[in-house]
Structure formats: C-alpha cells, structure tokens
C-alpha cells in the first residue's frame, strides 16, 4: 500500500479519481480555502497543468478517462453547478449544461469517454442519467491512439 504522492506533505486530499491506465490521479485539495481539483502523474509524482480549472470553485467529483486525456468535473457558476470536461490534448473545455436546468451532484466518465453518468435531484429523489458523448469527444482508449492533431502536449 502506498500513499498518494505528496500525501504526507500535502494538505487534505479528497474525492480521488484514478485514470483507467492507473497513471494519473485527480483529487480535490484545499487551495486557500477553496476545494480545487489537482491532477498528478503517479509515475513521477508531478502535478500536471490544467487549463480550465483554476476558477469556479468549489470543485467536486472528478473523473478521468483511460489515459487521462479527459478530466470531467463539477464546478460552481454563480448559484448553479455545472459539469465540465477538459480535453488535455486539445486544450478545449466542454461545458455540459443539463437539460431542464438541473444541477449535477456527482459524475462518472466512462473509461473511453464515450458516455458520462450524472447524478441529479429529480422530484426529491436521486437519479442517475447517462448521456452519449460520442458525437462530441474522441474516444480515449487503452494504448492512447490519437485521432486528431494536438494543440498542446498531453504530458508536460
């Protein structure tokens, strides 16, 4: 058994999400009182840069695709919660506003990033709804086959 890199020095870490290949770990850390997502490369312990997740805290419920290309997360926008997927290869953000103006509470991205499960409140009950992302995201499969030209490097 091992502690997450930086665990002994790092402040509180919550809500872990490990990538399909086991090489990346996203956690929520306390950053000046604001719960913020942090992504680490487990092979060398280094923190990896994220382009779109320095604001809109509190962050919660991170989820990673197989190679860690996609990081899905729930963020705060005003008084609403919004799920966003960052594509670390292209640098793009994909906001996922829910039909009906509902707010997500938890999420899970499928390993290949073709589907996402969102937990929402509906008439006083928790519901889980599945959404198809196949028209929006390239898949992120084992082996890391890339289908498009990257605008940024995935691993820095």
């Amino acid at each position: 058994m091992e502690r997450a890199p930086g665990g002994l020095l790092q402040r509180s870490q919550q809500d872990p999400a490990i990538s399909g290949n086991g090489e990346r770990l996203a956690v929520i850390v306390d950053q000046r009182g604001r719960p913020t997502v942090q992504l680490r490369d487990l092979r060398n312990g280094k923190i990896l840069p994220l382009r779109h997740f320095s604001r809109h805290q509190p962050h919660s419920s991170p989820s990673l695709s197989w190679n860690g290309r996609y990081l899905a997360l729930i963020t705060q926008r005003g008084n609403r919660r919004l799920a966003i997927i960052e594509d670390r290869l292209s640098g793009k953000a994909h906001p996922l506003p829910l039909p009906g103006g509902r707010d997500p509470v938890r999420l899970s991205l499928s390993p290949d990033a073709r589907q996402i499960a969102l937990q929402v409140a509906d008439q006083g009950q928790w519901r889980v709804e599945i959404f198809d992302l196949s028209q929006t995201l390239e898949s992120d499969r084992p082996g890391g086959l890339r289908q498009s030209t990257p605008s940024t490097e995935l691993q820095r």
Partner: protein
Amino acid sequence: MSKTYRSMRPFEICMVVVATGLVGMSMTACENRALKPRQDLNGTLRQSASSHREPSLGQLWLVTLSNRQGRERIELIDLRNRRPVPLPGLNRPDAQPISVSVSADGERLAVVQQHADQTELLLYRRSLGSVQRLELNPKGVPRQVSLNGSGRILAVQVSRDGRWDVDLIRLPG
C-alpha cells in the same frame, strides 16, 4: 430581390426575426449537443428503483447505489442489455453501502460500506463471487473509492488523524 429592413412591411420583418430566432435556437441546440441522453437506459434506470446515486461507469457497466423499498444496495447494470447483474454475496441486509467503483470490464467492484459499527473497505470479484476485506495501513476510516480500468489499483479517501488522505493500494491479480 433583397430588401432593407426599412422597406419591409411589419409582417416581413417579423418573419425575419422569427427566422433569426430559429437559427439562434438551432445554434444553441448545437452547442448543447454534448448532452444527448441515453433515453432507453435512463428510462430503465427510472423504473428499476426509486433512486440511484454514486454512479461509476465501466466500459459497458454502470454501478450505482440504488434504493428499493427504503433499502440501499449496490446495483450493477450491463449497459448492453440494460439489465441488473446478480452480485451474490455482496449486498448484506445488515450493511449500508457508502461508495462503490467498478473496473472497466465489470469484473471487480471496490466498495466502502458501514457494517456492525465499522466502516469496511471491500473488493468484490464477480466471477468468483468473493468478497475480500482490505485492511488500511496505517489504520483509518475509508470514505470514497476509485478503481482503475484493470481493477488492480485502488485509490481510496481515508480519514486519518483528523485529516483526509488518499491511499493507493495495488491489488493482487
């Protein structure tokens, strides 16, 4: 053939506004195309239990904590046929599940559950129907779990000495 707005009649202007609005609406729809609901699956989920929470997706699997008749249990659904899969030996009547995560192939489930005043960390192997209790070292109270795709690495949020840690556990093959 083209007219300026000034030379148009009110009805024509109205039609232009409506047409512009429709274009705008269709553009909005394009922006929101990211979220295309799986209607078939969502309908099944809505009917199968009074509530579902804590979703975890494998490649062709969805695991949730589902509530039927006031009792919460771990439910694994095969996304190919939208049917729940039996999990013999996992859902105990005297245990309350807290967190669950599934491997990509649906073979392994990591579970945190409350049982007999203790919070337990478990590994369930579906093909064997076996439940293995995992010990934390140093000791702590598990809260949230995440399995990697092969189900061989487990990240677990642990309460220890008044703070939250994340432990990584390499599991046997």
